[in-house]
């Protein structure tokens, strides 16, 4: 795990050294900030963060793939993967390190939004219910983590970052619309399709309900994707 941490720290430092990391965070905070201001701070509106969490969740659709797309594909493209794979670093440590870097970036991006519920607490009377706020943040982190894990897998499969972005984007899109698509598939497949419906699970969280099965789904699906990425990286030696 020490090597995974070294890899994560290097990756994170690189994403903050260029402009792109800052731009992603700035855009994310700007849009969620506008949504918050319009929906919750406007007089007459209820002191709820429902719209904010809706926007924050949907924004992860383009943002998470943008964070993850270069994680491994950039190493393949630039050839630095050769230095990593000839170091005493297992594929698992490498991929976990990359995923950790993505997660840390995600948390750094989401963390400043914590001022919105604080503002609401101060200015609104009665103060907002903190239950849905907590579950909303948990959902954001779980969803973001799952998206990043899908993105890490996509990035481990190609040296083309654009391709990794698009693959991740559409995979997430399928998850988001699985509920909708579920209405049109034969009944036998319905449970399977609904299982992958991110929207259905998100709806539960929005009500302030933390269902452990949802947590297990997001965490488990992420673990499978990250493990798949580790296998994909190790298989390169046998290509």
């Amino acid at each position, binding site marked *: 795990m020490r090597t995974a941490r070294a890899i994560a720290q*290097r990756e994170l430092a690189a994403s903050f050294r260029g402009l792109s990391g800052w731009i992603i965070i700035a855009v994310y905070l700007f849009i969620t900030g506008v949504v918050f201001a319009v929906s919750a701070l406007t007089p007459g509106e209820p002191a709820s963060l429902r719209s904010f969490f809706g926007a924050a969740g949907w924004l992860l659709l383009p943002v998470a793939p943008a964070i993850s797309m270069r994680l491994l594909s950039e190493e393949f493209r630039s050839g630095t993967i*050769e*230095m990593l794979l000839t*170091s*005493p670093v297992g594929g698992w440590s490498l991929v976990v390190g990359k995923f950790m870097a993505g997660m840390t970036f995600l948390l750094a991006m989401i963390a400043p939004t914590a001022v919105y519920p604080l503002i609401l607490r101060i200015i609104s009377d009665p103060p907002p219910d903190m239950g849905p706020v907590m579950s909303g943040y948990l959902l954001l982190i779980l969803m973001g983590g799952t998206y990043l894990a899908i993105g890490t897998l996509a990035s481990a499969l190609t040296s083309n970052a654009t391709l990794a972005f698009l693959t991740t984007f559409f995979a997430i899109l399928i998850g988001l619309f699985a509920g909708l698509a579920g209405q049109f598939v034969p009944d036998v497949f319905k449970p399977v399709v609904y299982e992958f419906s991110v929207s259905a699970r998100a709806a539960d969280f929005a009500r302030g309900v933390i269902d452990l099965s949802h947590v297990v789904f997001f965490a488990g699906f992420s673990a499978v994707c990250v493990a798949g990425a580790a296998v994909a990286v190790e298989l390169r030696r*046998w290509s």
Partner: protein
Amino acid sequence: MIEVDRIHKSFGPVRAVQGISFAVEPGKVTGLLGPNGAGKTTTIRMIAGFLAPDRGKVTIQGHDTIDQPLAARRLIGYLPETVPMYPEMRAREYLTYRCRLFGLGRPDRKKAVGWALERCRVADVADRRIGTLSKGYRQRVGLASVLVHNPPVLILDEPTNGLDPTQIGEARSLVTDLARDRTLLISSHILPEIERLCGRVIIVAGGVVKADGPVDGGGTGWGIAGGGRTVVVSVKVSKAGDEARLRALFASMPFVASAQAGKAEPAALRDGFQQWTLTCNEGGVDAKDAIASAAFANGLIVRELRSEAPSLERMFMRAIESDGAAA
């Protein structure tokens, strides 16, 4: 100590490496030489553990690169031909990062980085971003980065690529120095470079080893037909038929691979002497002595008798063209 045992590697229909075996001992620089596309880089990548061989195995100080990958890789410092590094990192940061990948503890890192920077003469650019460095500096920072954990085995793929003659000279003394207590394998397609850097050369072409032996003998000991020394002898020829008799005499000597007579023109045939160039096979016989005594026994008058080591270039060409060449 690197041991390569009958490794094979194919990429789709391309059989890049077809059963290469050799062992590299510490103490001297070993060169892997071959034309472009010979399988050098694929071989080196399998030794470094970047690629897994389809068949055969590689061991580093006794550790199999597939069964004990982390133990084997810990012992290797491997610099790929393209010297891939992160352009946004400073040289010192990158070396520290490499230390962490190799599990060096925090107290050891600073010392190791300082030592490697000093050793490769890049201390003056330690705080510059790698992306802004010149090719020569980049190459040396790359070398420092694979040296930083002080590995007992160093593998350098085309290490003098892009260096100017002064830098090549420096690289040469550094490499020779490093080889003193390390196993050092270098690949190159440039013959004079191998000649200057290495004590031993392994020639590969078409995915197989064509020759393997010391460099300074100019190709002796490589086990190639006609790979021995060249003897130049000038013999007096006075009457017709002498040339044919000489040819028969040389042909009867078992150590002579081929005999070539100088042209029998007046200029070449000065004072009636004809110069012959004999290419000898490798062997224990001192060709000069044997030729001298044969000349004495046959009553020949010899004016010149000298032997020359074969040139490495001739041997290189011979090795590449030798049997089984697929290239």
